[in-house]
């Protein structure tokens, strides 16, 4: 980073102060001294510089003149070859702004400062007296940030130690230093837990063997217990069988006694015993049922004899039915007939009245009523009549109206002035002129001409100092651009070459000067001649001879002295020779350097001559264009002028173009005007020759409008005449229709009694209505006549039928037919009731007789069966049979019991015959048996529970064995365990590698630091030696307990710690450390500005001069700014480094 310009816009006491630092020339010192009297603001400058770079602190003391919100600093900075303009305002965030005032990140400056923070930068390279000392002490103590910064940051390992620490922390995640924490322990715990789980789930082979053996033992025990229990059970069963059989034997004996009591009672066939109850029941039932059915038959026969019969009336049933059908017509006639007779009288009266109204009293209605067709025709004519009359009236009216209208339009046309002249193409011409708008076009062309003219004037003026008119511009001859461009490029090239050549020259001159200096140094040595050497050798030899002769301590000493002298002389000679050789080489090098200086000088001159020649060529081109142009115009300026000339030509062209367009518009305007005037003259509207176009256009338009109006009136008149003719013919048609109707009307009346005097339309309407009334009454009366005749016939038929019936059934005749009818009906009903009763009784009697004969059949069967039984038992009656049969039943049951008993006994004692069984029971006592069974039962209980226990424990051992299972639970756990093991192995290797790597890197870092520190130490020694004017030969690191301390080595011998040095010397030491650090830093990171505020106050002039020399050297690689309030310091700086820039702060 380099500071190109620093603006203290509003900061501390400064307002709008700008300090430019110019541009740096590569290879020459970039050293600046800022001079300012006391209170001029040097320390403010330093603080401003830091504030610019690292923000204005929240509580800045620099806000006394300009309040915080208005404080502002600015700078032009060069960072990595690029220029940046930045502004710093006082704000918490976004306080760094770019040239446009937009906030930019701090990263820009951070990069420029190579990552140094404020404290480090202030302590290292932005110093005042205080920070110089503080930082220096810190460096010496080799502790704190600064020490580390100086030795590490400068060596390119800004925060390597921190990184290594963080890596170490990272490694502790796996296993920390004490081994008490970390992932390894977690993995291990998981691993062990898995092992435990496996152990709990698994059964190992020996355990399995043990389980198997135990199972075998338990199985054997269970089997023997089972055998014992089974034996006891068998014994108990035997005992219980015997005691159960004893009662059976007793019972068998008893049954056999009872059986013997039945004697020789015959055994009835199978099934008889079962029939006994049914037969017994039938015996009683048969007798009862026979008696009941005989009684029922007799009762029915008696009842049938009591009911009478009327056959006479029943035979006449059909006739009665036929007469019944006539009865309803008779009843209707009796009620309706009087009503209908009355109605007929009323109708006849109405007919008579109607005839009278028509004026035809006495006439037959048939004769008066005309035919229907005639009536229709009459009605139609009546309806047409009113339409025909109306049409005639309307036609008459419309004719009158049309006639009036025709007269009116003829009048109006006449008033308007009749016909018009032929206007020719006037209308079309007016329309085309309006469309072209020649007046507007001309105005617009004029306006653009004015614009173009103004632009042209402007461009012409821009060609100054050249002066000329349009023609001169058009005639300008400009050179080809590429020619000028090439020339410009060549000139630039030549200029660059001159600069380069000059730099080379400067460098070579310096080199020559250095070589000169070095040569002087080497040649300044003292001399020991060969003669001296020979003398020393001779003396040594002599002393040796002497010593050999005497061999005492005195001679020995003397010989030693001589020998040492000889050695020294010999060594010096060797040294001298080496020096001589070096001197010779230096001389050669110097000569070489001088030669190269000369070469470089020639090169500079050549380049300058070339540039001169090129400049002349440019001048000739420029003056060739115009003598008015300045001969010493630069290529860039000439380029610009050529561009402007091109612009002027373009403007001129546009101006001419605009003018041409204006004249075109003028001519087309004139053409339109004259055309219109002649057209108007043709139409009979001649006008003055100089009438302008607008006025002529208006006049032409009014002529056209008038012609249009006349035409409209003529058209209206023609229409009205046409309408009048149409109306006249319509009236004629209406009159024809009317006369046709009159003749039709007369023809229709001819066919009626009105033929002699046809009535009017109104009369005819009334007559037609009356004729309708008459027709209705006439029809109604005819209908009534027909119905009355029918009713009288019905009445007579019924009366005849009733009379015939009465005679036939032998009843007396009555006066009224319906009363006689009533008697006949009643008698018929009675006869029918009796007849039905008889039929019913006859059916019931037949059924009773059938039942009776069935019962008799059954009784006969029963008697046959009972007599069979009686014969078998040899008894007389049914009662005895029953007794014998039931005894046989009892015996059979007893026999069954006997058989069962025998079977039970054999079964229980497991013998095949009853005799064997009874034999086994002989002499057995029930009491003894029971006692034995009881004791066996008790034993068995114990044995059974033993067996169960043995079985349970056997099952358990078997289960245990079964539980082992063939599943893969353990295998899966083992799998997991193995994976964990692998993970641990992998991580452990990584961990170890990382830890060992850290150790190795630590060691390497130590070595690296040692190496680099020694490099820095050499540089610092050199600087210190120079600044102390050789009073101190340099610096050395001395061990002090656990660490090393830096000491200054005095030229006269001995060493001093910093605390023992004088103020000035100590400041020189501290500065020397910074200078060494700066070089190291720049080498590794690139340059940052070095700023110092009067840190040489305690230096004397010579030392200050040395310090400036070092700073000037430093400024060849990075910018150095030194602030002072001593005028003589400026002088010293100037003397030491003539290229220094001195700036003055306003007082």
């Amino acid at each position, binding site marked *: 980073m380099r500071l190109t310009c620093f603006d203290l816009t509003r900061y501390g006491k400064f307002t709008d102060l700008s300090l430019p630092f110019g541009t740096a020339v590569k290879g020459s010192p970039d050293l600046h001294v800022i001079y300012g009297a006391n209170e001029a603001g040097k320390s403010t400058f330093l603080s401003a510089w830091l504030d610019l770079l690292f923000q204005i602190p929240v509580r800045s003391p620099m806000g006394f003149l300009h309040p915080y919100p208005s404080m502002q600093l600015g700078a032009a900075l060069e960072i990595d070859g690029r220029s940046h303009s930045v502004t710093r305002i006082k704000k918490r965030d976004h306080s760094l702004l770019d040239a446009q005032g937009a906030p930019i990140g701090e990263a820009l400056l951070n990069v420029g400062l190579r990552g140094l923070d404020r404290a480090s930068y202030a302590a290292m390279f932005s110093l005042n007296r205080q920070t110089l000392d503080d930082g220096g002490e810190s460096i010496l103590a080799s502790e704190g940030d600064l020490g580390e910064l100086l030795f590490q940051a400068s*060596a*390119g*390992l800004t925060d*390597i130690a921190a*990184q290594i620490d963080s*890596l170490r922390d990272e490694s502790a995640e796996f*296993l920390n*230093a004490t*081994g008490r924490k970390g992932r*390894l322990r977690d993995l*291990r715990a998981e691993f*062990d837990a898995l092992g435990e789980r496996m152990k709990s789930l*698994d*059964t*190992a*082979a*020996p*355990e*399995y*063997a043990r389980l*198997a053996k135990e199972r075998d033992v338990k199985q054997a025990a269970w089997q023997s217990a089972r055998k014992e229990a089974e034996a006891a059970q068998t014994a108990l069963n035997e005992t219980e069988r015997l005691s159960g059989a004893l009662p059976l034997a007793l019972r068998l004996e008893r049954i056999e006694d009872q059986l013997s009591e039945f004697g020789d009672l015959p055994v009835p066939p199978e099934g008889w015993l079962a029939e006994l109850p049914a037969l017994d029941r039938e015996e009683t039932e048969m007798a009862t049922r026979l008696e009941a059915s005989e009684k029922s038959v007799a009762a029915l026969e008696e009842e049938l004899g009591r009911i009478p019969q009327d056959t006479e009336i029943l035979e006449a049933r059909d006739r009665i039915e036929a007469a019944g059908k006539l009865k309803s017509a008779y009843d209707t006639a009796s009620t309706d007939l009087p009503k209908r007779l009355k109605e007929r009288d009323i109708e006849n009266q109405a007919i008579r009245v109607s005839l009278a109204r028509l004026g035809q009293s006495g006439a037959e209605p048939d004769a008066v009523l005309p035919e229907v067709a005639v009536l229709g025709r009459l009605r139609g004519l009546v309806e047409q009549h009113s339409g025909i009359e109306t049409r005639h009236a309307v036609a008459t009216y419309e004719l009158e109206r049309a006639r009036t209208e025709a007269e009116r339009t003829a009048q109006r046309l006449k008033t308007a002035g009749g016909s018009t002249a032929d206007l020719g193409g006037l209308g079309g011409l007016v329309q085309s002129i309006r469309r072209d708008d020649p007046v507007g076009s001309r105005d617009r062309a004029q306006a653009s001409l004015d614009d173009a003219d103004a632009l042209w004037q402007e461009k012409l003026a821009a060609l100054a100092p050249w002066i000329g008119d349009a023609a001169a511009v058009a005639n300008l001859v400009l050179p080809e651009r590429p020619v000028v461009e090439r020339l410009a490029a060549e000139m630039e090239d030549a200029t660059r070459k001159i600069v380069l050549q000059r730099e080379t020259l400067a460098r070579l001159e310096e080199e020559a000067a250095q070589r000169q200096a070095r040569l002087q140094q080497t040649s300044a040595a003292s001399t020991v001649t060969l003669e001296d050497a020979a003398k020393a050798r001779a003396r040594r030899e002599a002393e040796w001879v002497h010593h050999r002769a005497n061999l005492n301590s005195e001679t020995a000493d003397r010989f030693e002295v001589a020998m040492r002298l000889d050695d020294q002389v010999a060594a010096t000679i060797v040294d001298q020779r080496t020096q001589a050789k070096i001197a010779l080489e230096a001389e050669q090098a110097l000569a070489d350097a001088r030669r190269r200086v000369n070469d470089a000088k020639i090169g500079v001159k050549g380049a300058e001559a070339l540039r001169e020649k090129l400049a002349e060529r440019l001048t000739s081109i420029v003056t060739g264009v115009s003598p008015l142009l300045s001969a010493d115009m630069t290529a860039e300026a000439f380029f610009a002028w050529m561009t402007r000339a091109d612009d002027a030509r373009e403007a001129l062209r546009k101006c001419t173009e605009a003018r041409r367009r204006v004249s075109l518009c003028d001519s087309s305007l004139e053409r339109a005007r004259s055309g219109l005037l002649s057209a108007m003259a043709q139409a009979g509207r001649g006008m003055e020759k100089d009438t302008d176009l607008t006025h002529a256009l208006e006049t032409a338009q009014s002529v056209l409008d008038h012609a249009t109006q006349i035409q409209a009136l003529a058209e209206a008149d023609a229409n009205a005449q046409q309408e009048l003719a149409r109306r006249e013919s319509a009236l004629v048609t209406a009159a024809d229709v009317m006369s046709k109707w009159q003749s039709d009307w007369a023809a229709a009346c001819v066919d009626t009694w009105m033929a002699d005097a046809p009535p009017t339309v109104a009369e005819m309407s009334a007559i037609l209505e009356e004729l309708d009334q008459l027709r209705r009454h006439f029809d109604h009366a005819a209908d009534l006549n027909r119905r009355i005749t029918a009713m009288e016939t019905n009445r007579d038929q019924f009366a005849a039928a009733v009379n015939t019936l009465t005679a036939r059934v032998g009843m007396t005749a009555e006066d009224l037919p319906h009363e006689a009818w009533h008697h006949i009906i009643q008698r018929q009903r009675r006869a029918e009731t009796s007849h039905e009763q008889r039929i019913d009784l006859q059916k019931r009697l037949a059924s009773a007789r059938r039942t009776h004969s069935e019962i008799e059949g059954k009784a006969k069967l029963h008697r046959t069966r009972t007599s069979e039984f009686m014969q078998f038992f040899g008894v007389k009656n049914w009662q005895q049979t029953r007794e014998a049969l039931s005894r046989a039943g009892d015996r059979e049951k007893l026999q069954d019991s006997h058989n069962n008993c025998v079977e039970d006994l054999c079964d229980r004692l497991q013998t095949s015959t009853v005799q064997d069984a009874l034999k086994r029971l002989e002499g057995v006592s029930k009491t003894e048996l029971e006692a034995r069974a009881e004791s066996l039962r008790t034993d068995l209980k114990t044995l059974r529970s033993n067996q169960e226990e043995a079985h349970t424990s056997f099952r358990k051992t078997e289960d245990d064995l079964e539980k*082992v*299972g*063939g599943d*893969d*639970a*353990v*295998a*899966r756990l*083992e*799998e*997991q*365990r*193995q*994976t964990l*093991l*692998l*993970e*641990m*192995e992998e991580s*452990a*290797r990584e*961990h*170890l*590698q*990382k*830890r*060992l*790597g*850290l*150790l*190795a*890197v630590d*060691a*390497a*870092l*130590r*070595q*690296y630091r040692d190496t680099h520190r020694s490099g820095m130490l050499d540089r610092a020694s050199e600087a210190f030696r120079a600044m102390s004017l050789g009073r101190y030969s340099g610096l050395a690191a001395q061990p002090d307990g656990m660490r090393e301390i830096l000491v200054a080595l005095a030229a006269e011998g001995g060493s001093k710690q910093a605390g023992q040095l004088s103020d000035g010397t100590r400041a020189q030491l501290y500065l020397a450390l910074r200078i060494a650090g700066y070089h190291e830093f720049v080498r*590794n990171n690139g340059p940052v500005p070095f700023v110092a505020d009067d840190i040489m106050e305690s230096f004397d002039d010579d030392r200050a001069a040395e310090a400036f020399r070092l700073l000037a050297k430093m400024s060849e690689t990075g910018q150095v700014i030194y602030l002072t309030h001593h005028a003589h310091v400026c002088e010293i700086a100037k003397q030491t480094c003539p290229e220094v820039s001195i700036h003055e702060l306003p007082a």
Partner: protein
Amino acid sequence: MAFKFVHTADIHLDSPLKSLALRDANLAEMVGSATRITFSRIVDLCLAEQVQALVIAGDLYDGGQTSMKTARFLSQEMERLTVGGVQVFIIRGNHDAASKITRELVLPDAVKVFSGRAEVEEVTWNGHSVAVHGISFRQPHAPDSLLDQFHPPVPGAFNIGLLHTSLAGASGHDPYAPCTLADLQNMSFDYWALGHIHKRAVYPGPTTVVMPGIPQGRDIGEAGRKSVTLVSVTDAGRVNLQERHLAVAQFERLAVECSAIADWSDVVETLKHGLRSARRDNEGEHLIVRPVLEGKSPLTWRAHRDADLLRSEAQVVAEQIGTLWIDKVEIALDAEAASKAGGAVGEMAALVADGPLRADDPRVQAELDLMLKHLPRELRGIIGDNEEQVIEALGDAMRQGAMDILARLEESEG
């Protein structure tokens, strides 16, 4: 076809798979009992092919195993074979001999386990007489040949020999019933069913000699396709061999050549591409891959520094595929051609290469002791079993560790 039998060996039942890929619980779930599944598949194969016998030439399980669950599982599978009418012939290998569960194991009667003395079992399969010869290891070690104990071949029968042998063996490994191929062929058997070596090898000839290899690889050292052998013998006595692959998971090393690559993203792409092709090129159900970055590469430092990123990239691809798993990503790049870091870190790298610290430095030893103290018993030997090994391993670890750290520092410097 006269008869068929399946020949396998080195089942190592319930011996766990060893791979960091199994840290993935899904994979662990699927291949957690891979050796069992594979063995069940062998039984399934026997039943499906309706073979006459299953021949197991030793090492049914690992010597260190004591779990009777393993034995029970084995019995169950044997029971299935017995029910299916398949005879089983077993010899004990070095691992079986050491096994405690061998003694407690109860196998169905149809399973013939040969004793420590050579026996011959004569059977008739589909009307052909077959003689099965075999001998079991009595001890875990069998330094001498067992061949001279075998009975001579039974005349007129198809003679099958079962032997667990390291064959001629490799130097540095203990010999197990050593013998040469020629010795075996001189016995005039028809088929030698061998076991012990985990890599498949087939030697055809008048005597067919087959080392079927382990049917389920257990770590990256047992990479590649694994198989059992289905042997069918024609009426004429011709032997046909079929290689059957029944493994649940297959291990594969994947070489990723980085010599020609100068760009980091290309390294990642090459790795991903390699993984995808590896999945395409191998048929197994689950493929556990260890990509090995090889070649001279200027990206060696970066690879060491970003090894974790490489692993996650590989992991992403693996997850997309679903049946591909990453064992770990091994970086075997040669930094020879790699551009050395410049500046301070470069200088430090040079210092580290010179070995600033000796392996027997007390600080180094202290680190090692601390770690070993907290490792489980099984891992005490991870650095080496003798002093020489330990010193060398520590030196390597230190150098590599330092390089990794410098790579990181270089990163933050750059």
